[in-house]
């Protein structure tokens, strides 16, 4: 039996699709790190909180087009509160303290999400909502959880949908950063806090904005993840998958988050199957993604697209 090319291609495709999902989480990380130097560990719990809010609203009978903006609003308010009560008092503290504060925030949200809603596993079928939402019911089949086979290669339709959403989101973010005034002030802040303040950019407002935008990204990522793996407590662990992704890409680069996601997505699948077959043991993907990241970092210590830090005594 020769090399199974069909299977290999499927593996690559499946890996790329998983990679897109990792990138979605990673983008939220990068936004916050870029603008305030905080390694935001709470990103995973924000995902859970946002998705859970949305699911509980729709389960309570709220219409999709109402539930979506309400959940977005919740995340925006949440972002502003975080800026006011956590970021501002913690300004100028060591990076480690800030990191730990976000871990504290993660615990807080974890308790809050389960307290406000519950800890059961909820299903989410976006197709059900989009069925009502889209005008042309014939095209609906695109969004139903199903697959297409093309040259014997299986591709999940949902994964294609997720990729389109992710692509759109990145496009919007790019336009937002490059063309709008707020976006430019954001970039200014990320380049140099002091200089930005000196030219009159309100730092705290920019931070609040970043947290709000991150909240919205968390909602979108959360919904897609929820469709894929259902809404439950384990969404929090999505964040751990995103860690090697952002580290490969470099903490400050959005393109890096995407490339990193794809590398990890494909790499861990290849490792699990081929390396796993080679040594006859399974479950390698739990640590293999970190190993890949380690190899990349050994050659580029600040990630593929990260800013090179120059150290002076």
């Amino acid at each position: 039996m020769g090399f199974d090319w069909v299977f290999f291609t499927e593996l690559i495709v499946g890996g790329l699709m998983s990679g897109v999902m990792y990138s979605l989480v990673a983008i939220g990380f990068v936004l916050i790190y870029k603008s305030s130097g905080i390694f935001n560990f709470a990103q995973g719990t924000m995902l859970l909180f946002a998705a859970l809010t949305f699911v509980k609203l729709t389960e309570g009978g709220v219409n999709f087009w109402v539930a979506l903006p309400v959940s977005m609003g919740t995340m925006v308010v949440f972002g502003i509160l975080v800026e006011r009560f956590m970021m501002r008092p913690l300004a100028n503290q060591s990076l480690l303290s800030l990191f730990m504060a976000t871990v504290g925030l993660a615990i807080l949200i974890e308790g809050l999400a389960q307290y406000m809603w519950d800890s059961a596993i909820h299903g989410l079928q976006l197709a059900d909502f989009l069925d009502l939402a889209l005008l042309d019911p014939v095209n609906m089949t695109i969004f139903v959880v199903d697959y297409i086979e093309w040259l014997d290669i299986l591709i999940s339709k949902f994964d294609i949908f997720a990729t389109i959403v992710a692509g759109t989101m990145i496009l919007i973010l790019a336009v937002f950063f490059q063309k709008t005034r707020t976006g430019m002030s954001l970039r200014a802040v990320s380049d140099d806090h002091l200089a930005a303040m000196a030219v009159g950019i309100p730092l705290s407002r920019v931070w609040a904005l970043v947290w709000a935008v991150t909240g919205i990204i968390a909602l979108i990522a959360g919904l897609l993840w929820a469709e894929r793996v259902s809404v439950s407590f384990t969404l929090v662990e999505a964040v751990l998958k995103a860690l090697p992704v952002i580290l490969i890409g470099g903490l400050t680069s959005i393109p890096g988050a995407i490339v990193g996601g794809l590398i990890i997505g494909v790499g861990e699948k290849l490792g699990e199957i081929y390396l796993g077959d080679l040594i006859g043991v399974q479950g390698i993907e739990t640590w293999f993604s970190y190993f890949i990241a380690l190899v990349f970092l050994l050659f580029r210590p600040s990630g593929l697209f990260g800013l090179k830090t120059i150290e002076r005594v």
Partner: protein
Amino acid sequence: MIYRETGTFITSYLEDRKLFPIPFDKWAMAVFMLFMVFVVPFIASDYWLAAHLIPILAYGTAALGLNLLTGMTGQLSLGTAGFMCFGAFFTFNIMLRSPEWMNLPLAMMLAGSVTGVIGIIFGLPSIRIKGFYLLVSTLAAQYFALWFFRSYPYFLNYATATVTLPDHHFDFYGIGDVFGVDMASFEAKYLMSLGVVSALALFAKNLMRSATGRNFMAVRDMDIAASVIGIPVIRTKMLAFFVSCFYCGVGGALFCYAYLQVLGIRTFEMNRSFEILFMAIIGGLGSIAGSFYGTVLVYEFPILFSWAGDYLFGGAFDTAVVDNVAKITYGILIIALLIREPGGLAALWATAKQKLRTWPFPH
């Protein structure tokens, strides 16, 4: 006037560098240790020993190990539970596969050393990778440890699930029989843990006062500057990884042997690493005693909270509400503490001591 410096005159450099510059401290520490050794085992119930004191000692060792790495040398690690896992499994295997003369503390030290060597391997990337990027190396250690021991059942003596640690592993050459003491009782386990932890804490304290400890701190504060003034940065970092992982390994062994009495993989999952990182940070990075303050707070907080829920409200709320409110409170507490006192409990305690020393004339 309980906490005075009056009458203490330092006449030599040696005296200035004493562990306890204030006599009261020395006496308080001595009384505390005597109390822990000679009184506690006789008055504490099994519950207090098994569910509070022993786990605090085991966690404390690991937190101390992490503190040596993160607090003293500035290398952030999220692999603590993984290193504990190595320590616990190696201890078990040494006990299982070595001849009669092996005893538990010796096995722990050996296992700790092996864990230290593994720590060096996972610490090697720290030569090139810095800051948050180093997380990836310690996370790899964490997940690798779990995967490794799950995939190779040899290390679990081919048990499918968990191994119950047999009582005879606790026996030291029949000493228990000679004195008529059950060496596998919680009292004996407590005293063994206390002995190991005290020795390790004392060693850490002295390490910090030595040239090696000062090298650690120089690397933490700025490794380039440290290398400029001639400190061997790479060797210092590797030594820090070795010592830290040694402590974590011993902590893991205590965790399984003295506390849980079973060996299994689930014990060392990712959230245990975070728990211990919290212990080190809340206690105070770079403080030996702080590691233990942090351990007590982090370990006892949810338990106290559920007790309070039980006793104040007589079970009016179900455990989900209590647990979630505990989480919310805990999160707020951490953020508040980081805002008010980034130095952690140790810094709070130092402030209090300073106030006591100068009281009633603070100026």
